[in-house]
């Protein structure tokens, strides 16, 4: 049971994703009609004994721009907010390697854990919120896109696959045709 609580919620399978109310764990972009604040990104999810909501301000932070994460964690059964310390870590959203840095450790403030951030380089990042409850570690990962990042990657991969297949097929076909011609020539010779 305890080991089950060692949860890493990877909600960043697809970067720049968006949330609807019936799809858990998808970021949603919303605009507050009551204020002039820029849109925020919000994600709700369920982890172990907790319902977790985190919000990022602004929704589309730019390099060098000050941003903030708000994290709410309430117990699933009692509805009480988690009361402890939450450590926020930021890392590059890369398959291999990547830089990792601790943003800070925060105490609860009026039911919210607030963490500021400032990133100077555009790119895809993951912010991890880590805490312990009942001696069980919780890690919640969520994506953060800073600035405009090129989305050419999938097109490149698709092109590489298609071109490779077409070249291989073309070579095999040429070989097959050549073999056929040689066989015909052999038959004619004999």
């Amino acid at each position, binding site marked *: 049971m305890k080991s*089950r609580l060692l*949860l890493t*919620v*990877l*909600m960043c*399978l*697809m*970067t*720049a*994703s*968006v*949330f*609807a*109310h*019936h*799809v*858990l*764990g*998808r*970021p949603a*972009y*919303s*605009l507050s*009609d009551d204020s002039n604040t820029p*849109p925020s990104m919000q994600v709700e*999810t*369920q*982890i*172990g004994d907790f319902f977790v909501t985190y919000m990022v301000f602004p*929704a589309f932070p730019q390099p060098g721009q000050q941003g903030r994460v708000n994290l709410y964690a309430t117990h*699933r059964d009692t509805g009480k907010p988690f009361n402890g310390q939450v450590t926020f870590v930021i890392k590059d959203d890369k398959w291999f390697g990547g830089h990792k840095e601790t943003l800070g450790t925060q105490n609860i403030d009026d039911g919210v854990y607030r963490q500021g951030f400032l990133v100077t380089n555009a790119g895809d990042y993951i912010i991890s919120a880590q805490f312990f409850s009942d001696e069980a570690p919780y890690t919640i990962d969520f994506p953060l*896109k800073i600035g405009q990042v*090129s*989305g*050419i990657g*999938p*097109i490149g991969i*698709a092109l590489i*696959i*298609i071109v490779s*297949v*077409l070249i291989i*097929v*073309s070579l*095999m*076909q*040429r070989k097959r*045709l050549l073999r056929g011609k040689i066989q015909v020539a052999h038959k004619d010779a004999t």
Partner: protein
Amino acid sequence: MTMTHPGLPFSWQILIAVFMLLVSVWAILVRPPAKARYQGWSLEQMPLIGLLVRFLNSSPWPLLFAKIIMVVIFVTVIFAGLQGTPIPERNLATVLTWNLWWAGLIVAIFFLGSAWCAICPWDALATWLVRRRLWGRGKLNNSLNLKVPKWLRNVWPALLMFMALTWFELGVGVTLDPYATAVLSLLMVVMATVSLALFEDKAFCHYFCPVGRTVGYYSQLAPVALRPLDPDVCAACTTLECYHGSDKVEPCPTHLVMGTLKENTFCTSCGNCVQSCPDNNVSWHLRPQSVEVKQDARPNWDDAWFMLGLLTLTSFHGITMLPFWYDGISQFGGWIGDSGRLLLSFSLGMLLIMFAPIALYAGLVYWAQCWTRKAIRYRQAFSVLAFASLPLAFSYHIAHNLNHLVRESHDLWTLFTNPLGVGTQPLSMMEKHERHLQMIISQDTLFLLQGGLMIFGFWLAIQVIRYRAFALYSETRLWVLPIIFFAILIHGFDLWLMAQPMTMRM
């Protein structure tokens, strides 16, 4: 705050329920004729529309032009998805793909059959890449032309792909993710291209494509189909250009012979047969919507499973858009110890919702079998009677999709002029309310269409049960009761879904 669309009013629910009961009683009491009689009409001979059909049939250029337009839109969708805003309602990729195309496609089948497959952009791109020409017969050495392995020559792969698509759509939430939508579009191109490069003809369209197979099965209920103008000409034909192709025209991509063609399932409406026929004997026909599913379509085990899969997955779509789905799956996740995005809970829920109606159907077919005491194999009865699920799925699917189309697809001009959503903000609550109120047609008209479709679907299903079951057992009528019971339960459930408020997609 979650925005919901209102469900079908109570008066419509009562009307449809009463109709269902009356028709069911009628089906048990009245013996069906042995064979449905029908007459098809060539669309070429009809005023006005005949001009259009003759123009489309005159040369490959109109179709090629339509394909090029579709490919341009498709590439724009991919580019917008990868480079545009992640706000789904402001990005062309998500709105056009899921609110307009995916919802509108099912409605289009109701009028145009499998016409979508003729202008399918991923097939067009794959064909151009592999054949290396825009139209006409390509060099053979651009594809290995392998035969599809026997174990893959069925629609099981397409059913699995359709389940996977549903999982991505509703579980992972691709519909709300422009980037993932673009990646999915690219994936379709890659799969279609690799399949065309490896296998002979259009194996991807025939066996693997979840969209193509969905279109194919629903097209059995379409009022239009490509058929011979004069069957005697086909009967006397010895060259079979429709099947083999000609010097300039590719053969039928799914191995169909026009002279014996009786079902739309695997026809991709590509028009190769129209272009290649030396006697100009192939064209579009208008026909009654029920004839193919009632008697002409051949029953197969895998076809039956696909049709039942369509039925359950369409209902599943509706269930996931109920306002309490989110809480229910969250609760379920808590019970089984699922965390994060609750994909395990979602997957189990999806499988359970798919399994329950199919198990019910299997049991009721078994009951019908026991009742008749006929020496008919269970597998055959299962395959034949599964045709009844098609009109049930189709009618609910269209009625459900009309909600998306009518209530969520306006302001497209803004999207086309700014496909990437540059500089846009998320929809404010006021804008959401405005969208909710600004419908393409009035709400009463929408309810009329939805109610009419539900009535039409049940009527067709009952027709199918009567004809198919009579052809199967050819005697007493009471054995149709279990299958009618199945139709009432499933359609009743779908009617209940239609009556519930539905969560807005974005």
